[in-house]
């Protein structure tokens, strides 16, 4: 796992917490919006740490760009400074804060009661050994590359218990799924939608077909997890109806926003 990735996790996690607190504490709505932008950037960094690269970019473009520009525009349009009430401490502040903290404690209890940190440590050692084995096999494969013998399938013996397995293992597991789809052993909807026509094999689009010239590349190095291609493939295959409905939703929200915000014609 290394030293830098946890360091960046803690950096951006505390950044997200501090900026979230600042959003609800600041008096001036303009400062709230600006700290919220910083918060969205922290979240985008966390998405990158979770190898969700596409969503990190979408987070910055949609949240940090579009939505926050809308917020800033409205704040400046309404000129809130003179309507800001002098808010003092009140009982319901304390009650709401206590309720929120209780909510967090309940969630934390539910999460931590499912996790045994000693088990995590054991699992981490096991995964580290496995990664070492994989790297040794990769070295052997690299030695055999000249004779173009395909390398052994990298063992992905389910290091799935915790999220901290490294990038290599994630990509290997994802590449195994893709290989299963390509070879027809499984379809993307297996075990998910039993009524989905299980006989239909899934064909990868030509852009994802393995390149014969790249056949010597060690399997599992495709690096597709979290990128644009798999998300878009899912959006136009299994999730095509929600995707189209999103278009209808956006159209409806555009029309609704126009009707609500326009001045009434006398």
């Amino acid at each position: 796992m290394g030293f830098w990735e946890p360091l960046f996790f803690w950096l951006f996690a505390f950044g997200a917490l501090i900026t979230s607190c600042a959003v609800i504490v600041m008096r001036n709505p303009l400062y709230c919006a600006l700290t919220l932008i910083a918060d969205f950037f922290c979240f985008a960094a966390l998405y990158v740490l979770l190898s969700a690269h596409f969503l990190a970019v979408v987070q910055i473009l949609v949240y940090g760009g579009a939505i926050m520009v809308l917020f800033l525009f409205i704040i400046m349009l309404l000129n809130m400074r003179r309507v800001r009430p002098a808010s003092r401490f009140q009982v319901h502040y304390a009650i709401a804060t206590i309720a929120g903290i209780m909510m967090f404690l309940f969630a934390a209890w539910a999460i931590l009661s499912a996790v045994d940190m000693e088990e995590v440590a054991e699992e981490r050692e096991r995964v580290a050994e496995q990664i070492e084995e994989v790297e040794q096999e990769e070295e052997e494969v690299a030695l055999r590359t000249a004779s173009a013998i395909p390398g052994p399938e990298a063992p992905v013996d389910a290091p799935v218990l915790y999220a901290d397995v490294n990038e290599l293992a994630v990509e290997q597991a994802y590449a195994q799924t893709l290989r299963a789809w390509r070879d027809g052993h499984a379809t993307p909807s297996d075990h998910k939608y039993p009524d989905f026509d299980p006989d239909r094999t899934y064909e990868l689009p030509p852009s994802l077909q393995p390149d014969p010239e790249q056949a010597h590349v060690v399997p599992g190095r495709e690096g597709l997890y979290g990128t644009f291609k798999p998300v878009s493939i899912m959006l136009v295959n299994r999730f095509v109806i929600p995707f189209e409905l999103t278009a209808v939703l956006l159209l409806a929200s555009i029309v609704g926003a126009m009707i609500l915000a326009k001045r009434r014609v006398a």
Partner: protein
Amino acid sequence: MAWVSTLISYWEPTLAHYLLLSAAVFSIGLIGVMVRRNALIVFMSIELMLNSVNLSFISFARYRFEMDGHVFAFFIMAVAAAEAAVALAIVIHVFRHKRGVNVDEMQELKY
């Protein structure tokens, strides 16, 4: 030296770390929704809560080695964009009638 490995196992982020962060940000957004009177800041807190849900979706997706969570987070972002557009239009509308955006004063369904 057992405590060193325990400390390291807390230092390196796992699924639990991401979920705890998500729960914390969600709670902060909940407190913001309950405490603040300015309607715009209430909407900002709702955006915070949506973001924390996105974070837990994506960490579960990474944990399961699947990408369905990414698609769900993508849809949540689209819905949040639509919601922000309509909500801010409503805020403008209310501001014209009330000359203010205090949520305590929004008690009627008229207008």
